[in-house]
């Protein structure tokens, strides 16, 4: 009540003062006059007190550090040991700008070998990216995930499903992350986003389609990404990739791939609702002897619905041959329900069935709990 009266008084007081009164006071009164001091005091008392001067959090040259835990439990039929549970992988990331010209990103993993149960460490990725090359170019050197399609560049913990699509796994295993050099060019296209990436790497050591050649055959990759804003809420991405490199037979495998992703996310309520449809197709041309070539095909397609802030649903279908066997046909279906507690923790449960013309039908139920401590960089859109 006191404040109300005081505020009302000040309001009436000021509104009744002619606009030029202050200049009159200034011109006729001494600066230290009692009246001036009283006015200043009243103005001060009508304003909220300012907090004391503060020191901001001490700056640090330490990189952003995070650890991601990936706990998994599974039930699989048609295997000797049906139940498994434990830490599948722990990832340590260190990310920072190096200087005005480059940034560096390192991802170390400690993963469990499903066969032996033993943990082993690996450098999943470690690369330097330039920030200031001319002509919208960006250079990356080190060990990195190849820029092929939509799944390969993404770390598994950021995917909305637990088990990789059969088509992807049959052609690329756990993915291509290889050592070499990558050059990306932002195409000066004012109509839509277009990025061309070319990469030259050593060739993966353990991959279904490619091997590290003892000779001078390297893994060559080109990827063209086209991104369209259909509206403020919807986007479409079309990607085309070509990869060629040495295979298990020390001959050449060529893979052409394309990806398509449609995303709908209302700008205003983007944390509550979203829909994604993503598909990739792989056309493989593998030379397995001087006079024998295997042409095979694989694809997957999934939809991901976000029902509420925390609840997600993913349904996926995959069709796949194998790189060296066009007659093998695998069909798989999976559904995943994800509960995202916060940006730092999510729990997912997945059911998957795979039928094949060469193996028994396999059914599995998977549970995954992902959690992160520390500061982890954002993933690509």
């Amino acid at each position, binding site marked *: 009540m006191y404040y109300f009266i005081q*505020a009302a008084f000040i309001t009436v007081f000021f509104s009744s003062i002619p606009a030029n009164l202050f200049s009159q006071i200034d011109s006729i009164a001494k600066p230290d006059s009692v009246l001036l001091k009283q006015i200043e005091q009243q103005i001060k008392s009508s304003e909220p007190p300012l907090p004391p001067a503060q020191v901001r959090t001490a700056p640090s040259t330490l990189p952003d550090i995070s650890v991601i835990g990936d706990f998994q439990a599974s039930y699989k039929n048609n295997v000797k040991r049906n139940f498994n549970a434990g830490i599948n992988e722990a990832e340590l990331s260190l990310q920072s700008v190096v200087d005005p010209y480059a940034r560096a990103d390192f991802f170390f993993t400690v993963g469990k070998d499903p066969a032996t149960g033993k943990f082993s460490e690996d450098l999943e990725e470690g690369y330097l990216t330039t920030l200031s*090359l001319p002509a919208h170019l960006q250079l990356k050197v080190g060990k990195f995930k190849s820029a092929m399609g939509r799944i390969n560049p993404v770390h598994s913990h950021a995917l909305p499903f637990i088990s990789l699509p059969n088509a992807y796994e049959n052609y690329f295993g756990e993915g291509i992350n290889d050592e070499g050099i990558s050059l990306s060019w932002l195409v000066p296209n004012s109509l839509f986003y277009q990025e061309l990436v070319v990469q030259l790497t050593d060739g993966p050591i353990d991959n279904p389609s490619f091997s590290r050649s003892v000779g001078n055959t390297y893994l060559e990759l080109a990827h063209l990404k086209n991104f369209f804003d259909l509206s403020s809420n919807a986007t479409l991405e079309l990607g085309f990739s070509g990869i060629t490199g040495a295979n298990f037979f020390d001959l050449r495998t060529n893979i052409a791939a394309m990806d398509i992703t449609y995303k709908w996310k209302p700008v205003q309520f*983007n944390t*509550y609702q979203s829909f994604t449809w993503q598909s990739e197709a792989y056309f493989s041309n593998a030379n397995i002897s001087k006079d024998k070539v295997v042409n095979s095909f694989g694809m997957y397609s999934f939809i991901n619905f976000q029902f509420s802030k925390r609840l997600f649903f993913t349904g996926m279908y995959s069709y796949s041959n194998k790189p060296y066997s066009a007659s093998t046909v695998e069909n798989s279906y999976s559904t995943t329900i994800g509960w995202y507690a916060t940006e730092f923790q999510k729990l997912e449960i997945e059911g998957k069935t795979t039928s094949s013309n060469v193996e028994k039908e396999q059914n599995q139920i998977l549970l995954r709990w992902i959690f992160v401590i520390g500061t982890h960089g954002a993933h690509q859109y």
Partner: protein
Amino acid sequence: MKLKIVFILLACIGTSAVNATKINVVTTTADLKSITELIGSDKVDVSSIATGYQNPHFVDPKPSYIIKLSRADMFVTVGLDLETGWSPQLLSSSRNPKIQKGSNGYVDTSVGVTLLQVPSSINRGEGDIHIYGNPHYWLDPVNGKQIAKNICDGLEKISPENKAFFEANLKAFNTKIDLKLKEWTIKMSPYKGVKIIAYHNEWCYFEQRFGIIIVDFMEPKPGIPPTPSQLVKIISEVKSNAIKVIISSPYFTTSSSDVVSKQTGAKTIILGTSVGAFDSIKDYFDLFDYNIDKLIQGLN
């Protein structure tokens, strides 16, 4: 027909020549866009990444934003860690050395702002705590002056020949803030000490400037959706303090505050957190005009 085509082509060339002389600015939020336009006037061409009705913490880093950033002369950010989930990735993908942190074209408008709620220690168990302090500082119009000064300094670095022009606009901006502040303060003075509930902890600067008291938040912790036990607590607080209003933002659903409203009669009011949140909020001054009028309307 041929003449028409030639005319259109000439018009296009003419337009691009005019645009070429302007400073191309990309801001993270619509408030910064508005203030940059007021300071830079016809010398700048400004676009904002986030819209006014979007949660600035959670903007999707679409590749199309990279195109804008790759051509920008200046990047203006709220800073602290408001945009940490999306702007660093966009900046490093832009391949534009002019706007990287530390360059002349990188403007952090939080510089010089007295921050509130600066934590002495960080624990994610407390929810989404901002390590440098609460980043919603533009919701105090006095901080708008510091934001404008930082933007003016940035523009002067890029275009020193227009220094006098920018500073004249800054002076006009500050004068208008002072005038409007008097008007807003007078309007809000009867409501000093009035208690309200807020959905998310983003109003502390507004609260301090205009003397309202936010008793509690719908979110039990920043970033954590309202829980049943939190709603019970809020209902009890609303009743015991005779609270009339729950304030929220355009990007939060009102389902939980509607529950409280039904139980207590308190009104849920959606205020604008940024320019463009509603059609009538066209610039930084409209933001406070809208919020103050709306709040007073609710409290009455």
